[in-house]
């Protein structure tokens, strides 16, 4: 403790830069490709000092133009870098996505209620970009390590000053955006290394993947933070960051920016059902403005073992481990459903596993004929394609000791001048961005309660119109017109709206 205190005072008194120990991505374009990153998807797994970051990559251009530069705390070993599948991030995105919930009004003459949920995934976009070495020594740039991981060639660079690094990157074919120099300099002064990834075309071609897969890095760091500053220098205006954290104690929030909850649980007009995407984008944009442009919005916080309503199944233990959740046991097992007329051997061939192993595990013969819909348990230890199997969690009630938080920020250099500092709270309260559709009962039955019910509907529709207008910032008259088109004419506008407003529906 004494040594700790001494060091603390010493560092502060000299205003020495601290060693920054965490990192995130920024993307640079190679050549003339007009690329900018509009949104990033990042998953952070954290327990104690151990951290695993997964960075998804929606790069749409020529893969040879792809390059990514990330400030890194240390020289990462080959084993600390991994490539995973896009499907896992998509699954996490779907599981945590803001959702619509549908309710159907009961027949007021009787009692009955139905609930159905619709998952609506808000996907965000992200772009990215690529490249090699010359004159390192003169420029003060050192190539600390060089690896090929999956379809990526990775360099770990250290640099003495930003001009040298910028020159090196430029000479090696990377297009450095204006304004990157000082930011690179700041990270260099904090003792950081640089993790540079580009696509190995040969590996990419042999992998058979159409898209670039997410890169993962595992490291230890006292700092729980996400450097976002480099990401702001090559962007045109504001960009979106979707950050998922997978932790043990509770939800995660930002320490140096305000984290707010998305408005949730409100009833909106049912016509939105077919067009939830634009509506949610407007709801989010409006919430950002209300937060003063610099807030972080929490869209989901939930115990990973379950969901209610579920926009997608919770991630399996296998998927969680793939994302780096090192404290979760693989556990559980996969099952595969046979088609009508399938043999054990044909199912095994589809999965790419030995027929004998599948047959033995299920007490069958390799040539046993299966019934359509029959479920077979996949023997453990085989790597089977996720889309062909269903993962059954281990029989412990689904408790996985993982808490997921989905944070969404819209940022630029002005609204978010600092990197995100994160804290894990002790709050395990579940939260979801959820919007409710109440379908009216349209039956023809007659009874006093039904008459009363029918009379009350226009009022309720007007409330829903007002709610949607307030959530999205859309013009209320447009919303009323849409609702009327959908057969739900709201009881509006109120009389005072007609006095000064010339635009009338």
């Amino acid at each position, binding site marked *: 403790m004494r040594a700790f205190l001494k060091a603390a*005072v010493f560092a502060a008194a000299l205003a020495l830069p601290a060693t920054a120990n965490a990192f995130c991505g920024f993307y640079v374009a190679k050549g003339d490709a007009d690329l900018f990153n509009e949104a990033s998807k990042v998953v952070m797994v954290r327990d104690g000092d151990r951290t695993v970051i997964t960075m998804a990559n929606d790069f749409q251009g020529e893969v040879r133009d792809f390059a990514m530069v990330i400030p890194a705390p240390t020289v990462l070993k080959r084993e600390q870098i991994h490539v995973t599948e896009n499907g896992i991030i998509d699954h996490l995105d779907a599981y945590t996505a803001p959702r619509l919930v549908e309710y159907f009004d009961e027949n007021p003459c009787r009692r009955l209620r139905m609930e159905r949920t619709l998952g609506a995934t808000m996907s965000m976009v992200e772009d990215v970009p690529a490249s090699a070495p010359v004159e390192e020594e003169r420029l003060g740039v050192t190539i600390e390590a060089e690896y090929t991981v999956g379809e990526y060639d990775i360099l770990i660079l250290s640099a003495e000053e930003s001009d040298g690094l910028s020159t090196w990157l430029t000479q090696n074919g990377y297009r450095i955006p204006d304004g990157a120099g000082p930011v690179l300099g700041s990270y260099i002064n904090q003792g950081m290394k640089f993790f540079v990834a580009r696509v190995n075309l040969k590996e990419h071609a042999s992998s058979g993947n159409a898209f670039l897969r997410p890169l993962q890095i595992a490291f230890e760091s006292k700092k729980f933070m996400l450097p976002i500053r480099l990401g702001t220098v090559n962007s045109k205006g504001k960009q979106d960051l979707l950050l998922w954290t997978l932790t043990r104690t509770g939800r995660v929030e930002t320490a140096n920016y*305000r984290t707010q909850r998305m408005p949730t649980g409100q009833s909106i007009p049912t016509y939105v059902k077919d067009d939830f995407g634009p509506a949610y984008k407007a709801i989010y944009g409006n919430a950002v403005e209300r937060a003063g442009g610099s807030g972080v919005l929490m869209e989901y916080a939930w115990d990973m073992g379950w969901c209610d309503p579920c926009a997608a199944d919770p991630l399996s233990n296998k998927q969680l481990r793939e994302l780096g959740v090192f404290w979760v046991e693989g556990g559980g097992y996969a099952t595969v459903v046979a088609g009508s007329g399938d043999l054990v051997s044909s199912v095994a061939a589809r999965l790419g596993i030995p027929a004998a192993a599948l047959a033995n595990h299920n007490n069958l013969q390799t040539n046993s004929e299966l019934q359509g819909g029959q479920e077979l348990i996949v023997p453990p230890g085989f790597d089977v394609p996720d889309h062909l199997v269903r993962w059954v969690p281990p029989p412990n009630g689904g408790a996985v000791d993982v808490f997921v938080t989905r944070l969404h920020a819209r940022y630029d250099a002005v609204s978010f001048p600092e990197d995100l500092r994160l804290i894990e709270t002790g709050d395990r309260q579940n939260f979801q961005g959820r919007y409710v559709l109440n379908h009216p009962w349209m039956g023809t039955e007659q009874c006093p309660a039904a008459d009363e019910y029918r009379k009350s509907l226009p009022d309720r529709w007007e409330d829903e119109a007002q709610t949607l207008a307030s959530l999205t910032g859309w013009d209320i008259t447009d919303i009323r017109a849409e609702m009327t088109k959908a057969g739900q004419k709201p009881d509006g506008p109120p009389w005072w709206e007609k006095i000064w407003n010339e635009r009338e529906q």
Partner: protein
Amino acid sequence: MLVRLMGMSSLKRTFADPRHGQIAALSCLILLGSIIYAFEMPWWRPITGLSAAIFVQWIAARALGWGFDWRSPTISALSLTLLLRTDGPWLVVLAALIAIGSKALIRVNGRHLFNPTALGIVITVLAFPGAWISPGQWGTAGWIVIAAAGCGLAVTYGARRLEVPLCFLAAWAALCFGRALVIGDPMAIPVHQMSSGALLVFAFFMISDPMTAPWNQRARITWVCVVAAIAFALQTSWIVTAGPLYGLVLAAPLVPLLNALFPAPVARWRPSSPASSQPKGAPTCVPS
């Protein structure tokens, strides 16, 4: 209207004791935070904090023969309510117990050593994952910061300790801007760091407590700078998210030392204050 109802003189009398101003200001901040800033403020937090703090103070007063005074534990409980987040009521009770208990048990030269609220928060947060601090809850800039600063200034001015928050903020600014200059960060970064609402709340409502600061002005300023330095080092190197609170606790043992090294002026209690059970804001340094 209120003034007319209460009568100017009774209002003046009420706010002559700076602790009343502090209670009013803290209550306003809690209300503003809950209503405007959507702090998560379950009803049990202020209730359990206040009851536990007042109860422990009452026990301590009986055990140690102090006169019982509700104001000091009320201030501690309101500060806890404002700064500490917990997943259940019992951690609030524990923090209140540590805060008020430390006043009774950890005493040097007749004064309690630690800022009660800061110690209660730091121990609870370090020991239990269910307790945490949300420094980001205030956001930055905006009127809430001005309101916090305004209330804080008034309260602090009442306590005649304006130099403490101002020195702390100046030292913090020097460290933030100094670091930015050294590592080549744009000035927007230290400006953002300085406009944190949580920082102002700390400066005006925590470190300004006159009972746990050195008596001598020069010693006090030195001590405030040391708190800022420790806090800054923790916050930048060890990513402790509420560095100032930790800094305040870690620098507390220096106070008796500084009081011994810089003895003048001799302090005594303001004659109107009853003995010593109501520390916050009560003591005044009067050269003898």
